[in-house]
């Protein structure tokens, strides 16, 4: 394999990673905690790529190393993330991933909700879906939050378990990257629920009341207003 081709491949990899950060799509893939790693790696890729040029002035046995197994097929595989990343429009996980994860009532209220969390200190008006789910879980009583105002953002999701006037406003909770995403959601009571399509991002404002979903008692968000919104800059929630 030609050293120039390798150098170009490495530099392109660095530029690709940087472009994900620059376009703001990086949050679709990894937790905000690891963004600095990606930036660091993109710089490192470019330096390593350049070393093929700079290094060759000092010494020449780069190509003497026994990496002849690295073929053009291998290069195609290395290029695959870049090609897929450029051709497939970036989108965060949505309702499709939720159907695959086969979200159950149990996971609606318990998955990815750590016991200890300092979000309780957050003002009630700013609480996100994860905060509410943790609160519900710790209270254990569907009526504990009756009457409290809530304003949350998430994507809409419905399946056959939902009543005609119900939908779920859902988010994925990500601790490392989208590969470990766990769905969370609040059941929303809204007369026009059926007009919402899956994956439509909405801001729901309303208040909490004890309700039922799929035969089980749980807190339900009674919507006063539903506002369609864009995908937020950070589509996932982080459990810390």
């Amino acid at each position: 394999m030609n050293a120039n081709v390798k150098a170009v491949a490495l530099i392109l990899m660095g530029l690709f990673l940087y472009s994900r950060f620059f376009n703001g799509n990086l949050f679709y893939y990894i937790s905000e905690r690891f963004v600095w790693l990606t930036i660091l790696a993109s710089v490192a890729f470019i330096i390593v790529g350049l070393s093929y040029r700079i290094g060759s002035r000092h010494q020449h046995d780069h190509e003497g190393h026994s990496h002849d197994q690295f073929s053009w097929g291998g290069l195609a595989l290395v290029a695959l993330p870049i090609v897929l990343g450029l051709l497939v429009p970036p989108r965060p996980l949505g309702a499709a991933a939720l159907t695959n994860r086969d979200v159950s009532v149990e996971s609606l209220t318990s998955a990815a909700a750590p016991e200890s969390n300092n979000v309780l200190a957050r003002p009630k008006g700013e609480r996100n879906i994860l905060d509410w789910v943790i609160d519900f879980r710790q209270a254990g009583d569907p009526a504990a939050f009756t009457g409290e105002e809530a304003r949350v953002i998430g994507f809409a999701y419905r399946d056959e378990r939902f009543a005609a006037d119900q939908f779920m406003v859902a988010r994925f909770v990500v601790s490392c990257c989208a590969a470990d995403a766990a769905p969370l959601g609040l059941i929303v009571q809204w007369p026009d629920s059926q007009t919402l399509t899956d994956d439509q991002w909405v801001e729901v404002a309303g208040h909490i009341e004890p309700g039922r979903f799929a035969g089980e008692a749980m807190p339900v968000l009674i919507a006063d207003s539903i506002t369609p919104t864009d995908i937020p800059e950070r589509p996932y929630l982080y459990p810390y």
Partner: protein
Amino acid sequence: MSTVNVPSSPLELPDETYPDRTQAVVSSPAGPILSKSALRLLLLLFLLGFALVIGENDLTGSLGNRFQTFVTIFLSLFIEAVPFLLAGAIVAGFIEVFVNRELLTRFVPRHPILAALTGGAMGMVFPVCECGVVPVTRRLYQKGLPQSVGIAFLLAAPVVNPVVVASTYAAFGWGPILYARLGLSFLIASVIGLIFYLADPNEILLPETLESTSSVHHPAHAHGHGHHHDDLDHSPGAGLWQALGIAGDDFLDMARYLIAGSLLAAGMQTLAPQSALLALGGNAFTSILAMMALAFVLSVCSTVDAFLALAFANSFPPAAILAFLVFGPMVDIKSSLMFLRVFKRRTVAYLILLPFMVTLVVTVYLNLNVRW
């Protein structure tokens, strides 16, 4: 196409110093290989285009959405892991240039048990995750590291290192999960390393891995071993750039396996329903199997898997969480694919099966006999 790419390399080489190299490059059958790969690339692009058309089409919208989910998960695994693999490759490059065989032989104890334990603890010196550890291990093997030490290092380092200790502490605090994770990973890795002590390196390692460093150097270097030091004396930056160049080679070499593994893991995640696995949480035996399967399939980096395990801490017993935290870093889809670049196939099979069996036995025992 072939005439554009190939000649640039011999041109920048000083021909008089490396006559045989130049010849080799020129005479390599670049033409046919290129067109074959060009065909492959075209095929790939065609498939992608096809997938995109499906994605835009409302009739088959759910298939398109699944593909989108697959791409997002694949890229997230790749983007999350790639800095760690690059870091590992850079460490490997520096080992190649700056660590000499004599130092390594002096550093590793002769006694087989002590040697295996050293391998298990070496992660404290090279803080790498399960992606980065593979290129590092391969370079250490080329520097003459005994295979038992290398295997203990390969299996233990993704857990027994300061970064992972810190992240596990952040997730679980000082407690049995943290101690047991460190202790078990260290012990299991050392024991498995010891098992390989008596094996013939030729049976275990790929020929390229066994290749000693000096023979990798071009025969034209009459002064052979002293070469690096000469170079370093003349221009201090040379060693650095050389290490980075080797890092680039190692990265590209390993990245294929990382990408293939991420594709597989993303495919499994897009198709297999996770709730089926999670339903097994109640049973002492199946809960552990489920968490180990989950660790294998998710292929999440060992530096962060503690946070992920936290999400399951409510629905699974502690020993199952421990199985996830001990087995996952040793073996998962993407790392075991990368093992293929270092070890022979049969060894890779053992390196998957042995940690699996030992972790299973130990954690099932803990599950049945220990109150947490």
